[in-house]
């Protein structure tokens, strides 16, 4: 019997969908709950005891929230998470501080201030490494995705895997291009993110190596022109990675 997993995410998860729809032999069953932009924040666990997720907009909302769960599509806007042995939260971005408008990739396109880069830059402002680490921890605990994940009951979190969302170097502000962006601090922040999630009982996965270059950025061949989301090649890599994760992650349905 195939493992059944739910993939929750925003537009980055949506960019994986074409690969899933593309057919081919599948080793796991995946359902996608995709809420572009800030709409993930509308998904809340409504009953920790029954462990169901409310899905506002499931009925009659053409967009922005859409759900690709065949059985639940006819339901009442709730999703029984116990149906899944693994819950994958994809697009867990260190790159989102507090609210979604803080996407780092928004800033070069005229978006608002970005806390992620503030964090990296702060390492040059007399901030000690210890204070920076504490600030990074504060930052992680205030990310949208962390708050989203932390609302789930323990029994669900134990079956959760979070995947960071890779970003290409050319989506960064000019000042943060390769060579100037403190890669060591990025990795340290990722490690802190992993620690914080593990404290919640959630596994934090790294990225598939085929997706990134030696500097840790998304390879040019894997993203679209926008240059934020994965293209078909990148989507296939992530999908295979998710399938592998699901197949190897222990868990059971109720």
């Amino acid at each position, binding site marked *: 019997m195939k493992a059944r997993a739910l993939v929750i995410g925003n537009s980055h998860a949506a960019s994986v969908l074409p690969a899933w729809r593309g057919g081919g032999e599948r080793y796991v069953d995946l359902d996608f709950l995709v809420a572009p932009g800030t709409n993930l924040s509308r998904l809340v666990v409504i009953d920790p005891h029954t462990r169901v997720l409310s899905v506002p907009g499931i009925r009659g909302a053409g967009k922005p929230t859409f759900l690709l769960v065949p059985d639940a599509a006819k339901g009442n806007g709730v999703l029984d998470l116990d149906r899944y042995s693994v819950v994958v939260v994809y697009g867990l971005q260190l790159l989102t501080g507090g609210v979604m408008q803080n996407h780092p990739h928004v800033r070069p396109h005229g978006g608002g201030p970005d806390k992620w880069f503030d964090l990296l830059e702060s390492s040059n402002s007399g901030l000690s490494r*210890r204070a920076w680490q504490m600030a990074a921890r504060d930052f992680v605990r205030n990310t949208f995705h962390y708050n989203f994940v932390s609302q789930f009951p323990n029994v669900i979190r134990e079956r959760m895997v979070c995947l960071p969302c890779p970003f290409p170097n050319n989506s960064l502000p000019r000042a943060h291009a390769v060579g100037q962006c403190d890669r060591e601090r990025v990795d340290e922040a990722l490690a802190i993110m992993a620690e914080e999630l593990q404290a919640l009982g959630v596994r934090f996965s790294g990225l598939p190596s085929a997706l990134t270059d030696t500097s840790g950025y998304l390879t040019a061949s894997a993203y679209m022109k926008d240059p934020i989301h994965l293209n078909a090649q990148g989507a296939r890599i992530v999908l295979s990675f998710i399938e592998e994760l699901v197949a190897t992650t222990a868990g059971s349905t109720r």
Partner: protein
Amino acid sequence: MNPYKNLPERSFWSPAVAQKSLFEILEIWDPKHSIGKSQKVSTYGSCFAQHIGRALRSRGYHWLVTEPGPAMMTGETAHKFNYGIFTARTGNIYTTSLLLQWVSWAVELSTPPTEMWVQNGRFYDPFRPNIEPEGFESADELLASRQVAIAAFRKSITAADTFVFTLGLTESWINKVEGYEYPMCPGVVAGQYDPAQHGFVNQEYPLIRQNLLQALRIIKRLNPAIKVLLTVSPVPLTATYSARHVLVANTASKSILRSVADSLARHFPFVDYFPSYEIITAPPFKGVFYEPNLRNVTAAGVSQVMAVFFECLNRKFPESSARPVRPTRAVRHPGPSSAGARKDRDVCEEEFLAAQREET
């Protein structure tokens, strides 16, 4: 007819003090300068000084912070690492000589010493011993951090409209060889006390006044438009090394500091004195604004001090605030709640001295 005949009521003890409730004694400061909400105020000094910045900010005034913590740092973490305590991350500046030392570094009249204290592999800044609760990870990190603080301190002078300084101590510890001063005796927070190298100086009036005057002259040269507001900390000494009883040492210390502040405020138009010391310590207040330890000031005491501050300021300069500020309910009914118990509790390195006693 005598010259007292036409004096206002506030000149007479009985109507101005004895016949009033402690919460009605409000008009005790005649400010020389306005502090408008758009005017930038820098705050430094002993433990009590940190209340002024917070109170200004909470009432919509422009408390200048030239060395803020990173935006994503929570208030709790920022407090732990001494961000947002004073305008720059100097730590407590207890004495006028320490103020002069910081000012001299800021204008490069002198170079900050390279001395640092190493303990358990961590590096502590002798001039800000408690600024990093677990010390710095390297000498370079410490020196870089201190340089940032010095630059921020300088900016807090050049960019400020008002510079607030709270005088705290006369007792000080110096490096006898090099002549520079530490805010804390080496060995208390970190470092090692070495009698051959470290000396105790209980500063007297002439030196304290001279150092403060020199510091203010440099500040004024850096920013000719700046106004200075002096206060004296009402928080008694945690401990004295003067060989006198701590009560006597405290009275002597505060009296000298109060005299210096009075002298400069009387002689220099750009210098003013705000009587926070009197509000907490004077007989009509009966010590009610002290914690049971008779040292820490209660939240109600801080609130009363700041209420008087804004009341006097707004009375003299109504344009400085759209709304006159009255004492809050908490002020009218001082309870057990204390400044020390609040989340924004005081950062006071001097209290490490009390811990020394408890350890013996």
